[in-house]
């Protein structure tokens, strides 16, 4: 199997996304959910995509899987192992989904079928891609349940989703995702609905899944802490665009985009005593009928005239692998959040109608 090829180098790309654009026509105008996203996922690595609600991080991965509704206008290129996915029809994509690329969603209750036992659902995933008898598939299902550390896997295989806790259900979803030894696992907010102690267990299960299958992983989350611990490389998204890309260390220690620095400054920390946080003023912009210029400029402490007219490209700085989309990247480097952002951020600016605003997160 290609996934276990030991000669594959880490630089070997499995998934290449180039100039991906996703638009949704609505009554209020064109929603530009994803605007020109480029990234390369290398074999075996964990790529973290971080952003707030409405930043386009989930839509990007749904586009990769071909799971967006028919109304979506998608352009650009998504190449999986050299094969163009955006031009593939549904039948071809079905062969890739689950086998080449698999997905773990946020809410495990809605991603499992309530009327089938979990053993049957895992077996179904295996039989979809392999010519294998049902009892053999069931046996593999039990092994997978054991791998994601579900206690008493033989008995639990006969349980229905409602009989399991949220954490256990998410393990089942992970077992399904790894069932066909995919090359890429996309985990979209896999722990957001769970408690922290359970989150730690699920992150561990995801690690296991990734190591067992040798798959590369895209981990999408709004939680910078989760990204810091799990990701090798990080993409920061804002208003449908990648605004910063680099290794985890680069992005966290020497951010090149004021937004990234602002996010770090607004986080209360468990490890250090902070007296005052430095919030980012205002709210994320509307992605309907985007104005020209940098989408972060209304909230940016460094914004100049050029920021309102010209959108900065995602460009490398002194380090060629560390990209930032800011006209004034050099002014961000080496600064603490408090140097740039004021503690007294004014939240008084009203929003234009139809602003894309954070959905309630529990």
């Amino acid at each position, binding site marked *: 199997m290609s996934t276990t090829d030991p000669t594959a180098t880490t630089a070997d790309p499995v998934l290449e996304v180039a100039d991906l654009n996703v638009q949704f026509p609505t009554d209020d105008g064109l929603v530009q959910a994803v605007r020109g996203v480029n990234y390369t996922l290398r074999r075996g690595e964990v790529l973290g995509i971080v952003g*707030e*609600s409405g930043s386009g991080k989930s839509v990007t991965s749904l586009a990769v899987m071909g799971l967006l509704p028919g109304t979506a206008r998608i352009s650009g290129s998504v190449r999986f192992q050299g094969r163009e996915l955006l031009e593939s029809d549904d039948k071809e994509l079905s062969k890739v989904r689950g086998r080449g690329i698999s997905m773990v969603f946020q809410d495990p209750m809605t991603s499992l079928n309530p009327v089938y036992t979990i053993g049957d659902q895992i077996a179904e995933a295996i039989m979809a891609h392999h010519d294998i008898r049902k009892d053999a598939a069931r046996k593999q299902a039990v092994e997978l349940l054991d791998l994601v550390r579900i206690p008493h896997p033989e008995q639990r295989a006969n349980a229905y989703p409602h009989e399991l*806790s949220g*954490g*256990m259900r998410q393990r089942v979803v992970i077992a399904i995702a790894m069932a066909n030894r995919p090359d890429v696992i996309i985990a979209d907010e896999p722990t957001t609905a769970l*408690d*922290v*102690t*359970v*989150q*730690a*267990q699920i992150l*561990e299960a995801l690690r296991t899944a990734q190591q067992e299958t040798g798959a590369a992983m895209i981990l999408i989350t*709004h*939680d*910078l*802490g*989760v*990204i*810091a*611990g799990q990701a090798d490389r990080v993409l920061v998204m804002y208003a449908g665009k990648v605004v910063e890309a680099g290794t*985890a*260390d680069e992005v*966290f*220690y020497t951010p090149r985009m004021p937004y990234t620095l*602002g*996010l*770090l*400054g*607004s*986080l*209360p*920390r*468990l*490890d250090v*005593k*902070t007296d*005052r*946080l*430095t*919030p*980012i*003023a205002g*709210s*994320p912009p509307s992605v309907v009928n985007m104005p020209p210029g940098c989408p972060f400029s209304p909230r940016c402490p460094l914004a100049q005239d050029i920021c309102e007219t010209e959108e900065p490209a995602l460009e490398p700085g002194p380090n060629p692998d560390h990209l930032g989309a800011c006209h004034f990247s050099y002014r961000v480097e080496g600064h603490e959040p408090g140097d740039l952002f004021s*503690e*007294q*951020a*004014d*939240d*008084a600016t*009203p*929003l234009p*109608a139809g*602003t894309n*605003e*954070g959905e*309630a*997160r*529990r």
Partner: protein
Amino acid sequence: MTETAMSPVHSKQHGTPVLSARNVVKHFPVHSGGVLRRRIGEIHAVCDVSFDIYPHETLGLVGESGCGKSTTARVVLNLQPATGGTVEFEGKDLGELSSKEMRRLRRSLQIVFQDPYASLDPRLPVNEIVAEPLRIHGLYENGGKDRVRELLKTVGLRPEHGNRFPHEFSGGQRQRIGIARALALEPKLLVLDEPVSALDVSIQAGVLNLLQDLQAELGLSYLFVSHDLSVVRHIADRIAVMYLGKIVETAPAEELFQNAAHPYTQALISAIPVPDPRKERSRQRIVITGDVPSPANPPSGCRFRTRCPKFANQLTDAQREKCKNEEPQLVDRGQGHPSACHYAESLQLI
């Protein structure tokens, strides 16, 4: 429960507490299906919880879903009557007040809810939302209009936007409207039930700063209920950690992080990811297994023992018997602050 009151969450601050909860118990009945709806059991949501909140102080109540932290907050506000125990506000027992007296007292005790989308009436303009408490308590006639403008300014909103409706505001702004409404009657204690967990990170910080400013300006006391230990560390003076209806450890905020004594607190601290890649990679992890047991049928003895890493890995069988048979009291076991573990041991995890 035991006759001697469990040692309440002590404060190093002096003076009389604004609010004292003593041995608060809240059980919810579980009924069978069908016509008879027999009572077939009880959910032990809050079991024997005691704490004090002093003036100008923030008590953080943390725990995972189902630990009883929100129920505790509701019992404190007398929104739900306690099954047992007492809640005293400025020396008055809430359980013994007439509804008329309680209504007067509600001016001093206000709440801010988690979801700023569900807690504001979508059909009222913001001015009316903030004016509603004033009208209900008959205070609007005397300069209520100016008071509303002033309140909106206090929470960082523009008074001229008062004619707009909630849907025209962002999540963070809506939460500010909720805070303005809670402040309208000049309360002494605000109960904040997960006030920032529905907000994006960049917005959350502004609301937290606002809460700190308001406390400094108005001398408020906060009961800050949250699942997020990072947020609580930032805002709280003292922290009480809850597990399955009980407070398992309580300490001044800094001390809790320097000297966590209860295995659950330790697990909780070590499970929360830190936005610092190098630290995150090198951290000591205490991973606990399994899920929270059902509060309808909590384990005997120590409620945490079914998931406790210490119970599973370090204790001898004889020591385990004590965990199974004897409920650990919330007392200081030599760590400088109370914890409810027979084998409490200080551990610095960050």
